């Protein structure tokens, strides 16, 4: 893979609580599930659990690429 993108915005794809639900677009958030909230969220969603440290996975990178391709 090419050079990794550093997060400049708050995204669920950067959260350490995320699990792939529909890679790379949707995430299952167990924190939301425990709070009885809809646990399936967009990779581009965010909440107060967000951390600046980038995750090692490609979720966000691939979701961003897909979005850029869609938007031409």
């Amino acid at each position, binding site marked *: *893979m090419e050079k990794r993108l550093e997060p400049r915005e708050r995204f669920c794809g950067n959260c350490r609580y995320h*699990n*792939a*639900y*529909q*890679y790379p677009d949707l995430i*299952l958030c*167990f924190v939301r*599930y*425990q709070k*009885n909230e809809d*646990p*399936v969220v967009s990779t581009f969603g965010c909440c107060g659990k967000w951390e600046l440290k980038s995750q*090692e*996975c*490609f*979720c966000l990178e691939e979701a961003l690429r897909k979005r850029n391709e869609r938007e031409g």
Partner: protein
Amino acid sequence: MKREDFLRETVIPMKLRPKMTVNQLIQEFSNSGCFGAGRLSSACDIFERMVRDEQCTIFLAVAGAMVPAGLRAVIAYLIRKKLIDVLVSTGANMVHDLVEALGGHHYKGHWFVDDFLLYKYHIFRIYDIFVPEEAFTKADKAIMDMFDEIAKESEGHSLSSCELMWEIGSRLNDPESILRAAYEAKVPVFLPAIRDSEFAFTYWVHSKRHPAGDFLKVDTFKGVSEIINIMERSSRLGMVVLGGGVPRNTVQHAALMAEKGLDYAVVITMDRPETGGLSGSTLKETVSWGKVKEKADKTMVIGDALVIFPLMVAAVLERLGEKLERRSVG
């Protein structure tokens, strides 16, 4: 013994020909009678005798990634045909059954791969099988939703792993699912190490959602009396083991506690006895515990269960033909 007693049966060279059936190949293995070929042909004979013995309750013990590797439909078929009466499994195999029942898949992969790259793509590896994480998370969510529903229905009453598996099976629609087949055929499914699987993680998350304590209650010890009761009601006991581990010992130990011992046993494993681990322990060693009868019809096949077990089942199905109607003992 006299000298001639050692020299009674000659090795008959195998003969292969086009369009041989599986059972015909096994017969050639029997003619050889040596090494793995001889043991596999014995395993087929023992499994056939177990099935034909109308007084025998057959326990299938499954450990290792048998369901991810493709044995799911074979086990469901055996359940539906009543060729096994009780299934004892690792929790993981039933989780993988759920993964597929809910539309997920396991993929043909490779062991020679960059595992950290897989990690970054949210893909898990089981030797040469790949499983995308989303297959698990979708199963997790479905299991947790089922736990919520079952907890509400059971009103604080504790369920055994067996009762829980039937509850889950009743909520599935996939006819190739082991749990669905077991629910429909009323074949008990014991998960003695249920907490050592994804069921445990989902249970933990489910319980966190119910701080008032109205979460699902699972009593793992309840299964002990359930499996012993089945054995006490049975005239004869048969065991087929894929791998070993906790499922194998659950069957063997229950046979001991029912004060019976197993009458038939086929163990398919790659494990060795020298480490003292149960999976590699010989059936001769098992006799010393009283878990298998000294005169039991038994053999241990050293080999990959994913190869050996389908060959054994296919050969025995061929011998039984389509007309076999075996009653359910369990």
